[in-house]
Each structure stands twice: as C-alpha cells, then as structure tokens.
C-alpha cells in the first residue's frame, strides 16, 4: 500500500480501511479547511490530513497530538460545534465525521500554534505537585482578587456555551435477559450465543461500528477477515427478533438491582439532530444478566517527551492504519514491552510507513517481533528504551534510543508507536464498590468481586488472545441464557488463533531526559509523583488528590496503571500493595442535558392546571406557581397598572359584594368505612367521630414529634364517609401520612381512603351576596337559607340542571361563604355559570393574592405560619388538642418546650404610621432596644395591605405574644433598611366575633 494518493489527504492510504472513499466529507479544524471520508472520526481525518498538533495540555499548555483511537483519549480534546451547541473537551477520537463539521482547538491563546501560556513550562520547577497549597497565602485578600482568577483562567480547558442548549434529550427504559457491554469479538460471541439460545439480548457498543479490535487488526475469524466476520455477526444479531443492537451507546454506570445506565448518541454524528429526534438518549437498562466485554485499554510507557504529538499508542496506530486507512506518520519507531511490537511493525510496513527501529524493553525478544522487524527493515533494539522523544510543537522529529549497554542513538522519526501493555476495561465492575485485584502475571488490574449477575469476558477479563476472547464470550453468553432457563443450543463458538501476548512489565524509563508524563491531560510527570511522595502523599488516593493524577476528563484510563506503578517504585512497594484509586460512574463523561431529558425549561416539573385554568387564561389572569400547580394570582382589569390595585379591587369586591375563587387545588381525601371516625380522631388533634353528618369542622394535624403538620376542614357526608381537605402544599404528604397511620400503626381499623383532589372542581363563593349567587346556581327547591344551611353545613346538592355537586358552608375569607364542588369535567362550565349568576351582584373573581389578604385579615395561619417549626400552642390552637384520646403527636406535643409561654406565638401587627408598609421576614425587637440578636423576639411571617382597614397588617410570631397586645415594637428589617414600628394586636383584624360568617 502507498500513502497519500488523494492530494488533499496526504496521509490517507490508497486502499483498505472501513471508510467510504466515495463519500468525501468537508470539515474545518481551526483555520484549516479539510476533507475526510464517511467512516472517519475527526481524529482519523486529521491524521489523514497530516495534522499532528491538536491540543494543549491543562497546566503547562504543552502541545499535544492524538494518543489513542477511543474514548480514553486524554490529549486530542476540541471544542466541537459553535454557539449554543459548543461542546468543550470533546475527544477527536470519538467524533464521527459529518459534512460541515467544525472544531476548534482549546486551552490556548491566541492560537494553537502560538500559545502564550506555554511559558508555564518554563516555570515548571515551581509549579510541581501541590505548589499552590504552599503559596499565595499573602496577602490574604489577594487570593480572590489576583491569584485565583489567574489560576482559573489558565486552567479549565474548553469553553462552555453561554446560551441554552437548543437540542432535545430523552430518557428511556429497556429490559432484557442479557445485556452485553461491548461489541468486540467477546461481546459479539456472547450476544450470538445468548440470542441463539432465545434470550432477550441488548448489545451496546460505544463505537458507531461494532467489532472492537476486529476492525482494527489484520486478523481472521474462521475463514474470514476479522472485520467481515464482525459485520456478519452483526447482521445475524440484527435479524433476531429479541436482540436489540445499540451502536453509539456507552454503558456508563452500574447501579443497584441490575440497573445499567447507558448513553446513546442518537444525533451526534449529524450536524444537528434529525427533526423530532433527540441529540442523545439516556437509557436505564434493567438486565437479569450482564456480560461485560468492554475490551482493554492500551497504556503507554513513560519516557521523556512522551507527550509530544507523534507519540501514539501502538494499538491506535494499527487502528488508524487498518480501520481508517490513515498513516499517523512516515517514519516510525516502535517501542514496546510486549508482543504488540510485531503486529505494529508489520502493519506499518504493510502501509508503506518506514519503521526505523523496534525498541523492545525485554531481554529476550520473541521471534515474531524479530521477524517483523527484519521484514520491515527495522533496527531491532533489544532491552532498549527511548530516553527522549525530541521535536517541537508540530511533533516528534527524532527518538533518543538507549540500548542495554547505555549507548545512545538518535533516530529521525515522526511517529513513536508505544505499548506498555493493556489494562482490562474493568471500570464498570467497580461501580458498586468492589476493588479490582492486581494480577502480577498480566501486570494489570483484573475485576474483583462482580456486581450481581455480571460476567466478564474477553480482554476485559484479562484474556488477550482473539481465540480465547471468542470462546469466552460465547461461553458467557450461553451461560447467561442457560441460567435464565434457555437451553444451551447456541451453536459452536467462532474460532481464531490466539495472537502472542507476552509482556514484561516496564513502566517508565528511569533515565529519561526531559519531562516524562504519567497523566497527559493534567500534566502529571514522574517528578511530580516523586515530589508528592517527598511531601508525604504516599497513599494512592493521596497521590491522586495531590497531583491530580487520573482526575482529568479521561479519569486516568491510559495513565493510572503507570502512575500506581511509579508510586510503587518510589515507595519501594509492590504495585499490588499500592492498589488503585476508586472507579466511579460515569465510565465516560455524559452530557448533563441527557440526565435531564425532557425535564427542562417549562417541562422541568409537570404543571397541574386547575379546572378554571382555561377560563382564567382567557380573562388574562396572572398565574403563580404554587407547588406544581399554576393558580390565578389575580385578574387584572383594563387600566390597572399595579398588582396591588387589582388585588385591592378583588378584596373589596368580595367583601362588599361577592367574589369567586378556584380552591380546587386543596388536597381532598375521601375517608370511608365503619372506623373512619375513629381513624380521624387518631390522626387529628381534635375530635371528628362526634361530628354530625352534614357538618364540617376545622381540624389540626400534628406530626408525631408534636409539631403541627397540616390543617384543613373535614366534612362528614355520611355515617361512614368523611371528606377531608388539606392545604395545597401538603396534600401528597398528608395522604402518605394517613396511609402510614392506617397500614402501619392501626391496620386493624376498617377504613379506606383515596385522594379525590382531582375529582372535584371546587369554588369558594364569598361575600354578602354569596347566598344569592349560590341559590341561583342550585337547582330549585334546595334551601340555602341560614337556617336550612348554617355555617359549617355540608352536603350534596344538584347544580345547574342536575349535576350532582356538593355544597359546604366554609369561609376562609371571613365573609358569608360557600364552597361549591362539581365533578371536575364541569369545572370550566361551572366557573362560567358562577360568573353569569353573579353578574347581577357584581361578582369578582379573585386570585391567590386576594385570598391571602383576606386570610391574613382574619388571622388564619397558612404556609408561612405552618412552617414545620410551630406548635399548636404557637398558633393559638392549644385548646384544640384533645385531652380525651390518643392522637398522633399528643405525647410529644405536651413536652414543656413545646408549650413554653416564652415561645413565640401568633400575633397580629399593624404599623404605627398608618402609611408604612410591612415586609415579611422582618424580626421583632422591643421598641427601644438595639437591633441585635439578644433582642430578637420573633418575626413577621405574612403581610398584606388591608383594603378595609386602609393600611398594612401582618401576622407574626412574638415571644409572650398574647400578653403584649397594644405594645409598640420594632419590625426590624436591616436587610432592606426598612424598619417599621408596629403595634401588637390579636391576629384577627376583621370581624373577630365572626358575625359575618353566620348571617
């Protein structure tokens, strides 16, 4: 093969590879306009175009090239796309090329080639591990103002977008018998075996092309080229009805109960996602069995200048040559401690790349390597090492090689293909907490205890031969299917030879010249490890944190093993004893948008719409979020400019004539059964079993610790039927609490309960004209006179021509008031009917603000007062606590601390200056005392402008409150510089006798 026929892709091989030369794709990298082919990644296309410098490192801004061909890439990170779609830190090695792709280099200024911060390299001796912990302490104020901003600007790699991500994301669930993670030889064999046995199989591979190393090596399976066998296996799997192939899908996390998280890149290979499809889909896969066949990640040998562009992992070199038909160099040196050297040399030579030398760290270089070197015309350096990769910004220009006698030779080259062996991809085996185990023979961490249901096969299990990967994968797939009750009729395992995989551990070249990097992205060098050890950071986890080894976007996939080995050496311990830092999800970084899925923007949380919503929207109501509900806050009328104006009008209209408010959002619970009364007696502090049918009563619920949980009115609709209401905010909590009380504490009670919040559209009709309006709505011959239907009456009615509804004579506003309920489907019609019936009486609709004003005027506690910190005593409800029966919270509520008269209790306040405005959250301080914590005697919870009184009023909690009516105190509000002198009074401001309710 020859390099470089198409002039625009000088390093593209003329033949071969799994790219489609008929489909050229244009793309841009910085200021270079380039062409690649379908089937390329950005990395392979850059290689084909001879682009070597692709990024800058984190700390020293050193020039970096492409190291790998997979998601483990630490160096070749780019900003992909632009504007709100800009994706920083995207690995060029995983970006599927598409027409029009645009990528920019990052972490450099002003340009990739001329990066001024590269001067950091000069200061490297002073910027070693943990240097910032030792300095920048003086003067103290300089940290935020000077040092920190400088450090932050220099660090941080790419730039995030600044506008909302325009692409959609989805979440999805999947279930299977056998989940196969990885579609290399082991995974394909596993999926085939399980699928043929009839199991439901999901096969995920993060690559867009299944096959793993089969696509990267010139090998065979059976009588076919390996890549062709892979394609056939995929075709066979695709034809099985219960097998799901998920390409472009990385399994990134293992969670409890056989739950696997996987990210599918649905539209990332397109300029923008197709219409109606997400950019990415975040899968939760529940699997009965799992076969982890994630392969292995090659690791470099650490030597001087090993981070220069042009130093590439040998396996990646073969991937670029064989799969992408792109030559990463013209003149190569191969450097390895294992048998990979042979195939790498042979593949390079076959592609027309000159192999200047094969440097093998081992004393006994096996025949295969010798022969490959010989065939390639390469110098073989046994027991040799590369002491330094020399070169410049644009990459390696030569290798300084030292042989076993210490003699140096300088060989020109633009590519160093390096292999330090392989680390099985075992991250997922550790996500539930198991520690990996060091295997001396393979010089690698192998899986320790496995997550329940998981088996590991192929290179991930430390079996590096192709033949055994296939066999093991097949067996794992068949075993999994069999364990789930399928018969083992999986056919024969595919066969192939095991390639030689001999290795002698060799981690770093001790006599390296120049900086030798262990962690490329975070610029952690061997000398940093040494310094950390000197500073006392000898435990693996300490080394990691002190040097940031393995903390970069690649999480140490290529560097960690060598890092641990270097640490072991520096502390004279075996690698096994040093151990390994903890693997944590996600296996590859995952877009935050994908975790959010549909739940963003307005869909962040579902919105609950009240029955009158459409009508209120038509009227131009202003809505407010109350929990997940959207409620009308007020209904502005033409000419009104200020919310207070609208609200005041609504309150006045209600108090003077009549108003209507949608109160359907209150929690409503049907409590039924022979023991319903007994049950309510136990969950409410006051008594309900004595409530007559056709009546309602205010009820107070405590938590078992004696503090107030919730309040509401409960009506008795029948001997065995109560209708409970809760506050809007606590509806779900109360339902859960009741079910707990019933099922756990008193299972012997014959009581049933169900939420009917949604069933009933309920409107409060309040004001002196309320009766007339209600009477007009009810079908004839239903008497709503005060005598027939007095305050707190409750019962069924028929409304507007036969609709079965309910009527309650309840009042939150303090006026003559009713709540009328109809089945929710009639809610829209009923509000319109109420408006029509009320028109002659001047009815006004009122929203939550006016509702709030009126309840404050009446001194009714609501959310701000029922804040979970208050007791019945604080609210003035001490009398409600029944002494005759046990109820939830009774015992603990009686503790002295909860009834201490010194506690703050509910009071009303009004400003001494009638024009003064009150603000919630002010604290009460005695009139002439200094505003300080020693004098803090309580706080203002709720405030309102009372149209009837013509001034602001407030509710609050004040120490010894009831004894202090008439006293003037300060509502101190230093936060808003708005102290107000207020007079303490009873919390009920209007009609304290309740005369209006009872008319």
């Amino acid at each position: 093969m020859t390099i470089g026929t198409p002039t625009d892709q000088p390093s593209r091989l003329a033949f071969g590879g799994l790219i489609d030369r008929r489909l050229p794709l244009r793309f841009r990298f910085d200021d270079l306009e380039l062409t690649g082919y379908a089937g390329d990644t950005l990395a392979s296309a850059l290689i084909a175009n001879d682009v070597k410098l692709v990024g800058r490192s984190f700390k020293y801004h050193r020039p970096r090239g492409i190291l790998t061909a997979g998601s483990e890439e630490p160096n070749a990170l780019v900003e992909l796309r632009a504007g709100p779609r800009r994706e920083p830190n995207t690995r060029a090695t995983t970006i599927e090329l598409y027409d029009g792709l645009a990528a920019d280099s990052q972490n450099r200024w002003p340009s990739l080639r001329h990066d001024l911060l590269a001067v950091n390299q000069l200061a490297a001796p002073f910027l070693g591990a943990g240097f910032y912990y030792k300095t920048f302490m003086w003067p103290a104020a300089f940290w935020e103002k000077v040092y920190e901003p400088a450090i932050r600007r220099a660090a941080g790699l790419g730039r995030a977008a600044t506008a909302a991500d325009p692409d959609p994301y989805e979440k999805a669930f999947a279930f299977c018998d056998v989940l196969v993670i990885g579609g290399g030889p082991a995974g394909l064999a596993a999926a085939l075996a399980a699928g043929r046995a009839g199991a439901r199989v999901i096969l995920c591979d993060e690559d867009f092309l299944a096959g793993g190393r089969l696509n990267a090596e010139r090998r065979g399976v059976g009588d076919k080229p390996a890549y062709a066998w892979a394609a056939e296996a995929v075709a066979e799997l695709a034809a099985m009805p219960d097998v799901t192939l998920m390409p472009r899908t990385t399994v990134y996390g293992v969670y409890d109960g056989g739950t696997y998280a996987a990210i599918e890149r649905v539209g990332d290979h397109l300029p923008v996602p197709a219409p109606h499809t997400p950019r990415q889909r975040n899968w939760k896969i529940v699997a009965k069995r799992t076969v982890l066949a994630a392969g292995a990640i090659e690791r470099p040998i650490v030597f001087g200048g090993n981070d220069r562009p042009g130093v590439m992992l040998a396996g990646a070199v073969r991937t670029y040559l064989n799969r992408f038909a792109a030559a990463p160099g013209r003149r190569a040196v191969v450097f390895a401690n294992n048998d990979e050297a042979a195939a790498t040399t042979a593949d390079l030579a076959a592609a027309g790349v000159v192999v200047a030398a094969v440097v093998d760290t081992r004393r006994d270089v096996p025949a295969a390597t010798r022969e490959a070197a010989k065939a390639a015309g390469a110098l073989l350096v046994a027991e040799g090492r590369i002491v330094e990769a020399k070169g410049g910004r644009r990459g390696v220009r030569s290798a300084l090689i030292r042989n076993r006698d210490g003699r140096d030779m300088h060989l020109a080259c633009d590519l160093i293909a390096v292999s330090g062996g392989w680390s099985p991809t075992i991250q997922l085996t550790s996500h539930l907490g198991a520690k990996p185990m060091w295997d001396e023979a393979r010089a690698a961490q192998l899986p320790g205890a496995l997550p329940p249901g998981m088996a590991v096969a192929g290179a991930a299990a430390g079996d590096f031969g192709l033949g055994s990967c296939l066999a093991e994968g097949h067996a794992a797939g068949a075993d999994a299917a069999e364990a789930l009750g399928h018969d083992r009729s999986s056919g024969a395992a595919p066969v192939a030879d095991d390639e030689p995989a001999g290795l002698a551990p060799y981690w770093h070249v001790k006599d390296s010249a120049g900086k030798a990097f262990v962690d490329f992205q975070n610029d952690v060098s061997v000398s940093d490890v040494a310094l950390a050890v000197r500073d006392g950071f000898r435990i693996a986890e300490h080394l990691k944190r002190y040097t940031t080894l393995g903390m970069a976007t690649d999480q140490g996939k290529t560097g960690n093993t060598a890092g641990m080995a270097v640490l072991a050496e520096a502390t004279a311990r075996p690698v096994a004893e040093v151990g390994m830092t903890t693997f944590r999800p996600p296996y590859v970084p995952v877009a935050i948008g994908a975790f959010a899925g549909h739940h963003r923007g307005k869909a962040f949380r579902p919105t609950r719409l009240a029955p009158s919503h459409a009508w209120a929207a038509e009227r131009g109501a202003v809505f407010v979020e109350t929990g997940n509900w959207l409620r009308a806050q007020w209904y502005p009328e033409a000419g009104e400019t200020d919310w207070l104006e609208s609200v005041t009008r609504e309150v006045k209209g209600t108090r003077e004539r009549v108003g209507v408010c949608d109160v359907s959002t209150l929690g409503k619970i049907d409590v039924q059964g022979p023991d319903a009364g007994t049950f309510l007696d136990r969950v409410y502090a006051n008594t309900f079993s004595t409530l007559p049918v056709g009546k309602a009563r205010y009820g107070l619920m405590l938590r078992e610790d004696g503090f107030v949980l919730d309040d509401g009115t409960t009506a008795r609709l029948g001997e065995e039927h109560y209708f409970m209401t809760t506050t809007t905010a606590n509806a779900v909590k109360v339902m859960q609490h009741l079910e707990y009380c019933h099922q756990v504490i008193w299972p012997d009670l014959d009581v049933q309960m169900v939420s009917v919040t949604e069933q009933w559209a309920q409107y409060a009709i309040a004001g002196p004209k309320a009766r007339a309006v209600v009477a007009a709505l009810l079908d004839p011959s239903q008497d709503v006179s005060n005598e027939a239907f007095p305050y707190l009456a409750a019962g069924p009615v028929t409304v507007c021509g036969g609709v079965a509804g309910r009527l309650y004579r309840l009042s939150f506003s303090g006026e003559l008031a009713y709540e009328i309920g109809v089945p929710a489907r009639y809610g829209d019609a009923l509000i319109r009917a109420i408006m029509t019936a009320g028109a002659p009486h001047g009815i006004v609709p009122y929203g939550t603000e006016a509702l709030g004003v009126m309840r404050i005027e009446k001194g009714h506690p609501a959310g701000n007062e029922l804040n979970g910190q208050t007791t019945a005593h604080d609210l003035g409800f001490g009398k409600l606590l029944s002494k005759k029966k046990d109820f939830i919270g009774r015992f603990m509520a009686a503790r002295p601390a909860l009834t201490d008269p010194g506690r703050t209790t509910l009071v009303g306040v009004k400003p001494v200056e009638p024009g003064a405005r009150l603000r919630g959250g002010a604290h009460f301080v005695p009139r002439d005392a200094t505003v300080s914590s020693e004098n803090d005697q309580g706080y203002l919870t709720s405030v309102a402008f009372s149209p009837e009184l013509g001034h602001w009023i407030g509710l609050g909690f004040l120490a010894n409150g009831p004894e202090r009516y008439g006293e003037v105190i300060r509502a101190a509000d230093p936060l808003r510089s708005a102290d107000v002198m207020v007079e303490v009074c009873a919390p009920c401001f209007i009609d304290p006798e309740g005369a209006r309710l009872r008319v």
Partner: protein
Amino acid sequence: MSNITPQTSQNDAMRYSALSILANGLRGNRGWTPAWREPEPKAEYDVVVVGAGHGLATAYYLAKEYGLRNIAVIERSYLGSGNIGRNTTIVRSNYLLPGNVPFYELSMKLWEGLEQDLNYNAMVSQRGVINLFHSDPQRDAYARRGNAMRLHGIDAELLDVEAMRAMAPMLDFDNARFPIKGGLLQRRGGTVRHDAVVWGYGRAADARGVDIVQNCEVTGITVEAGRAVGVETNRGPIRAKKVALAVAGNSSQVAAMAGLRLPIETHVLQAFVTEGIKPFLDHVVTFGAGHFYVSQSDKGGLVFGGDLDGYNSYAQRGNLPVVEDVCEGGMALMPAIGRLRLLRSWGGLMDMSMDGSPIIDRTPVQGLYLNAGWCYGGFKATPASGLCFAHLIARDEPHPVATAYRLDRFASGRVIDEKGMGAQPNLH
C-alpha cells in the same frame, strides 16, 4: 475565639511560602519533607480523637488553644477519606436559628484567618453564596433568615431579580418553570479547597506533636467503671484519659461500642463534577425550586450536588434517580450546561440527625465525647467544630457558641430544626 493569631509552625524549616518554593524548585525540589509523620500509635494518650475530619481540627485546637500535648487522631482509612474530603466545599454562615447562627459565624471567621494560622493555602475563596428564591413566601423566608443574620452582625443582602441577572447572567431568567425572583446573598460565603483543609490541619497538628495514625480502625471502646479509658483498634488497644468521637457516618456504629443509641441515621449524599471549563460561574448558587447547588472549582469543573438519596446507606455511593433529579435542577437553572459533561459522581456517608443539626456533647459514658450529626453541612463547620469540641474535651463544658448542640434536646423538644421537617432525617 479572638486570640487566634497567625502562628509560626514549630517546624520552621518547612514553612511554606513563595520563597520556599523558589528555593526548592531551584534545587530540584529535593528538599521537601513529609507534611506529617506516620507514627506508630503509642500505648496511651491524654486524648484519643477518633476520625480524621473534624477530628484533625479538634486535635489541632486541643494542642494550640488548650495546651494539650499528648494527643492522637485515629483514622481507619487515609487522612481525608471521610466527608471532609468528598464534599462540595461550600462555606457560609447564612443560618436561621439562634442555636446555629453564632456557631457558624465563628467558623466563618476562623476560615478567614485559617491559611495564615495553618501556613497552608486552603484556597479560602469568599466568592459569595447565593440562595435563589422563586416565590413570595420563599422570599419572606429568606428575608427572615437574612435579617436573623444581620441581627447577629453577619453580612446578608437580598437581591432582586435584576441584581441577580447582573451577577449570574447564565441563569434561566426567561423560560423557567419556576421563575427566579431574587436571591439571598452572603458575600463572605464561598468555597474552601476540601483536601487542603485536611492536609493543612494535618500538617499543623502534626507540627504541634499530634500523632496522626492512618489505617487504624477503632473496633471497640474500653469502658471501665462507667468511664471510657481507651479504644480497641485493628492495630491494638490504645489507652486514653479521654476519648472523643468525630466519626461522621459511623457515629451510630462507634457509639454503639459504648452502648449508646443516637438520634442519627446514616444516609448517602452524592456529589458531581463536570469536565473542566474556562471561568463560567463566579459564585456559589443554590436553586430554590429543586435540589441543585453549584460552584466552579479552581480547576474548572462545576462542582454540584443536590438532595440525599433518601434511604439509609453505608455504601458511599448512590443511585440514578438522584443523579437525574440533580441534573434536572441544573438544566432548569442553567440551560447552557446541557452539553457540559458530568465527569464523576461520588457519595459520602451523612450523619443525619433527627433535627438536621449537629451534636457536640458529653455522653452518658464519662470521658467519652461526641461530635456528630453534621448532616450535609459540616464542612463549613470544621474550624468551629474542632475548636468547640476541643473546648468541651479540655474544659468539660460546652463552648459558649455551641451550647445548643446537646443530646438531650431531642427528649426535651428544644430541637434546632432549620427546615421544619421534624424527626425524619432524610428530609432535612
């Protein structure tokens, strides 16, 4: 504590400074010595502090402020392996209730002088902590809190939505399900580099003669005649005149060794970091309509977290529902982070107390002291917790700012329940 002044570490040779870095750098960085020793545990100490989080600060102040000399900190794993090394680094004193406010403010003040005190750059970054509110009642609740702070002489500002927009333009002001209406800002709040706090206290305590014993697990508490006289460990017994527990997440387990039952459950809290990016967010921001809070680390990652997983756990890892919930909050707050990638997630064991507030107290066993129940908020407390616990141990009476953190408050009902959730630890 007013008399905390910068103090030269005993080990002057190893004083850290720009100069020492320069000098060492020129000499090939060969002159550095370990930040702390690795001593074998002695047979007996005056005080054995168990747990190397708050325990390190406790030992440091015992030595520095209370003049004790014969102290060990016993840690079952590596220094900083507990929550002190896995939290989201937020420090603030924007508390509401009188039991808490002065304590956390003392801590804030100690942070402000910490680096000079310890001669260690812990990157105390007072970049401002903002709690967003999204409704009028929430605004009132924050106003109540802000005023409580101001009454205690603590800085607090109530920002309206325009001020918020100016400070943090990347937040969603235009298409939010729960619109941002403003925020409570404490400018002195911010972040402190978690690991540096461990190492700084460790180094400074060591310099004052404290023995720091790593990889040493306490397996029993020796009680003789109703008095704690030492601990059993996997490296043998250690006698002690006083035993002090600061073993967050394991408090129930270790206290049970002395027959005690605590008002505590152990829960998991997860945290997350994204890939590094250029400066994006200058403050610490807490979303008020969901569980999400975030800051940007000096390395560039957005460090964020949210709610507890919600079930008892000693597994130090969590599950997906919370990851999703937190990221939903993140997207709701900052829709530009959709394409930023979550790099790593982890968990810590939260010592969740029944009212969400800590315990620093003597126990019914004489000579046994307890520091526990820090929930998800004890990192910011590290200096004050150490100081107050040291005070309690040395003087046998509570430090004046920590008098509310008593064990008997649960029985009496004088709970310190900032959230009003009652005796339900996973809701605090």
